[in-house]
């Protein structure tokens, strides 16, 4: 018994060491990014590559924020992502209601059509979209329209699963009280779907905020660029100024990290759910 417990202790220590090592591997690059964002080139090239900065160059942040228009890009990303989430939630919820509760012959077929979207990816339609969307290229819509289209299949899949499992009593009571179908949808269905709406919102946020291929291909004007593209440009512009690049990368990371700090549990739950259903 005694031997077993000491063996357990030993495997416990090995486990802790391995887990701590991986934690360092996963987080150290981010720590490093933050430290070099606060250094001058003289310090980095002078040999202080890993250590904490000797002079904390907060000026890097001010400079990059102003000169590289990162504020503008963050604003654009917020608009694009916000509208993408709003359209995805409302349109998917409406379609879900029609598929699950309304009575019409083609509902199964329409659901199937949406599900085919699970197998499609933005890559497959890059060129046709580029051709079809000529009139809106270089506006927010060039990104919002495809992001919504590709977010809806997962959204509808998750919402249909949820709504099917919910009892109909509340809706029936509301109809008896004389509410019309739009009111039932808005005042009963939407509140009932709230938990799954937040899951979908998180999934949509991550994919829209981080998307790069369309963002690079469809928006070239300074005015509507999103943060992913903005960061790309900034790195090109400052090529050898490590401090500024680090500051830019850190600024671009902060919104997602901030969200993660508050919603880590929800974010993990959402991604796990999105995967299970997909």
């Amino acid at each position, binding site marked *: 018994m005694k031997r077993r417990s000491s063996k357990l202790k030993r495997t416990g220590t090995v486990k802790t060491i391995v887990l701590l090592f991986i934690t360092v591997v996963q987080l150290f690059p981010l720590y490093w990014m933050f430290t070099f964002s606060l250094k001058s080139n003289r310090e980095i090239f002078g040999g202080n590559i890993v250590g904490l900065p000797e002079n904390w160059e907060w000026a890097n942040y001010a400079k990059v924020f102003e000169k590289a228009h990162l504020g503008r890009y963050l604003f654009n990303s917020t608009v694009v992502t916000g509208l993408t989430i709003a359209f995805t939630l409302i349109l998917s919820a409406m379609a879900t209601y029609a598929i699950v509760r309304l009575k019409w012959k083609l509902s199964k077929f329409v659901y199937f059509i949406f599900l085919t979207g699970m197998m499609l990816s933005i890559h497959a339609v890059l060129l046709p979209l580029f051709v079809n969307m000529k009139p809106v290229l270089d506006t927010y819509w060039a990104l919002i329209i495809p992001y919504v*289209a590709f977010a809806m299949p997962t959204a509808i899949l998750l919402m249909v699963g949820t709504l099917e499992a919910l009892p109909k009593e509340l809706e029936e009571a509301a109809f008896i009280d004389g509410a019309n179908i739009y009111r039932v949808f808005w005042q009963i269905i939407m509140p009932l779907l709230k938990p799954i709406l937040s899951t979908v919102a998180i999934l949509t946020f991550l994919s829209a905020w981080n998307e790069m291929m369309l963002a690079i291909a469809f928006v070239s004007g300074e005015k509507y660029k999103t943060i992913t593209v903005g960061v790309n440009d900034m790195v090109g512009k400052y090529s050898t100024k490590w401090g500024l690049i680090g500051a830019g990368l850190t600024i671009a990371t902060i919104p997602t990290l901030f969200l993660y700090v508050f919603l880590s549990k929800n974010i*993990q739950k959402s991604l796990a759910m999105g995967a299970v259903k997909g």
Partner: protein
Amino acid sequence: MERALRDKKAICIFVLPALIWFCAIALFPVFQSAGYSLLDWDGVTKAKFIGAANYIKMFQDPLFFKSIWNSILLAAASVFIQLPVSMILALVLAGGVRGENFYRNAFFVPVIISGTIIAHLWLKIYHPSYGLLNMGLGAVGLDALQREWLGDQGTALLACFVPMVWQYIGYHMLLFYSAAKSISPEIIEAAQVDGASRFQTAVRVIIPMIVPMIKACVIFAIIGSLKSFDLIYILTNGGPVHASEVPSLLMYKKIFVTNEYGYASAIAIFIILECLVFTFIVQKIFNHIQKD
């Protein structure tokens, strides 16, 4: 109420916006791509119908094969390296260790960060003179291993693979972890009462019970690798001398650099079909496993 639920106008109002949006932007363009793939077209001059010529050209293009081969290498590496590591981490965490939540949250951080930022960060890590990697190698006396990781034809693809693993290990870990956590504790206790060690419980009880999640992760890992774009676009742009070329990147360059619209569409169609075929094969293999 029955009548309200059959109201044609309401049905249209609820379903048509989403349906039209989805069909016009996601579904219909796939057929358009298929049509383009039969054309000789640069986007400016008039398109010419050339039948299957783009596909014939594609299958004779060594660069195309190189890109497919690279993406398959990436897929194999994620299935056989990334997933096992994620699985071990998930099982260790799900088995209960002190700080379980801390580790899970920490491993997961890179997942939510944009691929663009991660790519630029790793560009700096790989920097030949001031990068973390070469510096670290120098510090432990392995100067001989120092090299221009992204500029060396022998290491470029590997150097692109490492950040992919680094970013998504937490994702697969989370999926395995949540599947393992959803197994009822009684089953695991029963195994342990029967004298199974932790390791035996993991291998004989937990893993067989989360096969459906393993299947999903294998499919994600393969499809993700076959479609990889962001990281490689920034890290190497397929270079040096196409050493890290992948199909999505090749397609992107054919569209926006050389304006070979027809050929690019043929590649796009190939990527879709390739993903379907791989998904199908994985499904078949797992059906076989699940039956035994």
